[in-house]
C-alpha cells in the first residue's frame, strides 16, 4: 500500500514537471483565436506539427505574429495570406484549389471511382459464370 502511494506521488510529480509553462495572458478569447489560427498552419521546421503545437522558436515567433496582428484587428484571411506570402501554400494544411492541387483534392475520389467501376465490371462478369466456376474442387 505504501509503495503504491509512493508510486502515485511520484507519477503526479512527474506529470506536474512535464507540464509546459503557459504564457501568461489575461485574454482567453485572444489566446483561443491565436491557437485556432495557428492550428491551421504547418510549422516549416518541424513538419509534422502545426504552428500551434510546435515548440520550435520559429513557431513561437509565428504565434506571436498572429497574436500581434489579431490585436491590430486584421482578419484571419489577412493573416493567412501574410503567412503564405512568406512561406508559400506549404504552410497551409488545407492548400487552396488550383491547377497544381487538382490531383490532391480530387485524386482520392477519382481513385475510388476507378476502383468502383472496376469492381462492378468484375462482378458483372462473374455473375454470368456458371456455378461450377465457384466450386473449389472443380478444375474450371
Amino acid at each position, binding site marked *: 500500500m505504501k509503495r503504491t502511494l509512493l508510486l502515485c506521488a511520484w507519477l503526479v510529480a512527474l506529470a506536474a514537471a512535464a507540464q509546459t509553462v503557459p504564457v501568461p495572458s489575461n485574454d482567453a478569447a485572444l489566446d483561443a483565436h491565436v491557437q485556432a489560427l495557428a492550428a491551421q498552419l504547418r510549422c*516549416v*521546421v518541424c*513538419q509534422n506539427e502545426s504552428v500551434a503545437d510546435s515548440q520550435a*522558436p520559429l513557431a513561437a*515567433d509565428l504565434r506571436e505574429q498572429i497574436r500581434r496582428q489579431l490585436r491590430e484587428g486584421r482578419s484571419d484571411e489577412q493573416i493567412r495570406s501574410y503567412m503564405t*506570402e*512568406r*512561406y*508559400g501554400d*506549404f504552410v497551409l494544411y488545407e492548400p487552396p484549389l488550383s491547377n497544381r492541387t487538382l490531383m490532391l483534392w480530387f485524386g482520392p475520389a477519382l481513385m475510388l471511382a476507378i476502383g468502383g467501376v472496376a469492381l462492378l465490371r468484375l462482378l458483372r462478369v462473374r455473375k454470368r459464370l456458371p456455378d461450377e466456376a465457384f466450386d473449389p474442387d472443380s478444375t474450371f
Partner: protein
Amino acid sequence: MTRWLIPLVLFGALLVFLARGLNLDPREVPSPLIDRPAPAFAMPTLADPARVVRREELLGKVWLLNVWASWCGPCRTEHPQWLKLAQRQPAVTLIGLNYKDERDAATAWLQDLGNPYTDSLFDPQGQLGLDYGVYGVPETFVVDRDGIVRFKHVGPLTHAVVREQIEPVLKRLGA
C-alpha cells in the same frame, strides 16, 4: 494480352509516382519569393546602428543576401565559401542578414572569421527574417538589378553549390 497490359501499366505508373516521391525532399519549403520583388527593408547595420541600409539603395545592382548568425554552426561551415565568393565576384554586393543574434557576439564572429559582407543588416528580433520566409539559417538569396529574387538556397553553401548554382545565376543576371 490486355489482361496483362493494364496491370503492367498501372504498376509502371505506381513506380513512377513512388520514385518521384522518394526523390523529393520534404524538408525543402519552396520559396514563394522566387521571381517576386525582394521584401522592402530599412535596417540598421551590424557595424553601425546609426547607418540604415534600404532595399532601394541596392536597385541597379545584383546582390546576394546571406542569412547568418554567430550561434549557427552551419554558418561557420559555409563561411569560407563567402570569403572566396567575395574575392571571385567583386562586382556582386554581398549583404549579410544577422538573424536573431547579439551585436557583440556577431561582431566578434566576423572579426574571428573574416568579413565578406559589404554590410550586415542587424535583425535581433528576426522580423526581416520573417519577411523573407527564413526557416533555417543559413539561407542565401540572389536578387537581380530590378530587385527581383531569382534564386534561393537553404543550408550551408558548398563549393559545388557556388559553382553549379549560384555562379550560373549571377552570370545569367549579368553580374
